């Protein structure tokens, strides 16, 4: 077999096996349970959650911040690495764009889940006020979603053309790929538009990506609440987002490599490089954490102390220290050693990082609200604490499962590794094409 044909055969989308079907069924069950729980919430109101007038935002909002954070990886791998001329990241670009698209879609849906009156969402368009950070978020998230979809789609054009040909024995599938390829033939003119479009999008997506997470940070930083009232919040969130996103890429690329036997394309080198990148990102994030916690702790105003003592020594302490140590410090230590950056250990560490990142958002969002300026009085004792209810967890897991389902479906029909770009890099273009070029 010619290397080019072998490449296509390796990288063309494959049907789900038994494991894939079980996986899909599992996700669907979780999503159905979440839909049922959401129906309960829609019917009875947010009373079914653990939120009340003091803990007025909870796991939905922290989960939303998590999705926004994860989605930033699209810009990191596809844009920042691409523009800085890094070559090794090519096989990871599609994975990270798919993660970005799935995460940003779910971020948008999650914020609707948190609304008391989702049936009135049209008011955002009818009566939107530009001075509200929520409107900034709506604008920047939709922009980011659009650019992310384009940045996923454009590099796929040549791949769709290749797949159209490859699946010629399956006319229906082939027809779809053909339509999606927008008549890509690889002429000089097409290639030049293609290259400049991708480059333009790569540049465009960086400020928008910084925008989505900075604005998300501002949802909190524009309030007076101790623990949120911080000028550090924008960069702190962005640094954290890159950690979460890079962790997510490692986890997913490990799983995909295993299932689809992509060892020739996603090599130990990629894990090694991603591991090094993760160390750097974790260190930057740790630096912002030091700023975020130690400076208010040094000053110890009454308001800040109440919040910080709860985190350092109070009921949030076990979670706080597990997240800081398990999700940031341990990964940094483990990943400085080359052995730690081998696929399996890195996968486990990245899982820790992603889990830590999820809980970190929970710690940022929920405890702050329990330390208002005036004391909490005149409300039931239970309102002084917050923990999500079963239905709230069900809905939250449903959003996570939905994000995974979107990714699973996209990975089913799109080549996980960009075929065209890989062929170009390896210099194994289709033989008859090389002659005509």
């Amino acid at each position, binding site marked *: 077999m010619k290397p080019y044909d072998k490449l296509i055969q390796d990288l063309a989308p494959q049907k789900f096996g038994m494991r894939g079907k079980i996986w899909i069924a599992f996700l669907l069950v979780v999503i159905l349970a979440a839909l049922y729980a959401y129906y309960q919430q829609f019917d009875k109101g947010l009373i079914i959650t653990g939120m009340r007038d003091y803990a007025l935002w909870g796991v939905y909002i922290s989960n939303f911040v998590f999705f926004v954070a994860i989605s930033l990886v699209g810009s990191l791998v596809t844009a920042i690495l691409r523009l800085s001329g890094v070559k090794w990241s090519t096989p990871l670009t599609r994975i990270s764009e798919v993660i970005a698209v799935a995460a940003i879609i779910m971020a948008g849906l999650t914020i609707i889940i948190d609304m008391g009156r989702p049936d009135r969402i049209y008011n955002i368009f009818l*009566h939107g006020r530009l001075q509200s950070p929520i409107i900034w978020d709506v604008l920047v998230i939709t922009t980011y979603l659009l650019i992310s979809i384009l940045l996923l789609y454009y590099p796929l054009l040549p791949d769709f053309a290749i797949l159209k040909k490859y699946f010629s024995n399956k006319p229906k599938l082939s027809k779809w790929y053909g339509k999606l390829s927008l008549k890509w033939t690889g002429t000089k003119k097409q290639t030049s538009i293609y290259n400049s479009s991708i480059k333009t999008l790569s540049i465009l997506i960086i400020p928008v990506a910084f925008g989505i997470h900075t604005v998300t940070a501002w949802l909190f930083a524009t309030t007076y609440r101790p623990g949120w009232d911080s000028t550090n919040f924008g960069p702190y969130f962005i640094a954290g987002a890159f950690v979460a996103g890079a962790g997510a890429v490692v986890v997913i690329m490990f799983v995909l490599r295993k299932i689809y036997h992509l060892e020739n394309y996603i090599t130990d080198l990629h894990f090694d490089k991603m591991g090094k990148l993760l160390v750097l990102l974790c260190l930057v994030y740790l630096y912002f954490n030091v700023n975020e916690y130690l400076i208010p702790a040094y000053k110890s105003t009454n308001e800040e102390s109440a919040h910080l003592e709860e985190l350092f020594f109070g009921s949030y302490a076990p979670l706080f220290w597990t997240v800081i140590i398990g999700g940031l410090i341990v990964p940094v230590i483990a990943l400085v050693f080359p052995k730690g950056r081998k696929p399996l250990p890195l996968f486990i560490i990245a899982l820790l990082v992603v889990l830590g990142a999820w809980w970190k958002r929970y710690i940022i969002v929920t405890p702050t609200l329990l330390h208002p300026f005036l004391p909490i009085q005149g*409300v039931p004792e239970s309102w002084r604490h917050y923990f999500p209810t079963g239905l709230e967890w069900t809905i939250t897991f449903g959003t996570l499962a939905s994000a995974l389902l979107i990714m699973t479906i996209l990975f089913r029909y799109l080549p996980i590794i960009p075929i065209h770009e890989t062929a170009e890099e390896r210099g194994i273009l289709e033989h008859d094409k090389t002659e005509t070029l």
Partner: protein
Amino acid sequence: MQEDKKKSRRKFFELGIKFGLLASVGTVAVAKAFDDEENSGMIELMSTDGHIMQVPSSEVHDMGHIQKDGYDPRAGFPNKKFVMVVDLAKCKNALKCQESCNKNHYITGENAWLKVYKMQESEKTAPYFMPTLCQHCDKPPCVKVCPVDATFKRQDGIVLIDNERCIGCRFCMAACPYSTRVFNWNEPDQPQAAHTGTYTPDHTGKPSVKGTVDKCDFCPHKIDMGELPHCVTACPNDVYSFGDIYEDAVTNGSGQTFKLSALLKERSGHRLLEGLGTEPSVYYLPPTERLVEFEEGMENYTEFQSVKKTEE
């Protein structure tokens, strides 16, 4: 767009002139309404510069509703700027204010809009009771963050919520440093009376709506009838005084009227969390030279309850 602006400006001027004329007799009418002895022949009034004068009651005419044609609940009453003074020296946590507020706004949740906090700044300083309601800030952080203009600031200083527009994002609650906003987490179980008449933001709680935010509204529905807010009239100890900052006068539940600027000066008035720059419309007089023992108020103090569950 330009045309619209012009039109609304013209409308504003017209209203301004009309109400400017009314305002000159405004003091008279409001003071009358607050007076208990309507038929005693002479009536005591305070002029805008603080002089008390006697006027035959036959000279004073009831203005009726101060709402006029074309009244817009979003714009509020023209040429008025409402203000409240809370005298902490007088509060003994009788909670009649809260009771009346809860009843008249049909509050059925578990968090009252008007709460009397048990406060103590530090170990060695005296404890005191502090009634807290929406501060109707002139720079309201809640209004700033609302994405859909559901909560708004009116020309008369009142901050209200349009619960037919609120999307329930609760950003306003996160933004409010005074924790005065409450959310309808479920379908409010209000009495039938809450559902009578057409909805207006001027009477919050009539009705309350699932998934939207509520809070103290400074009782524009009472002001409209020339009356004082529910909490002011319900208080047996004259803790609250309410009035118009332009008239520089506030009136308490017993009908006594004070010159606002003098009161704040003499008693060293302050506002809550002044450092945040929210510019509240509620002033507090310090709990000095108190007539009542703090311990007396403790009898009524319920740490975990602010809305009594009624059987009816």
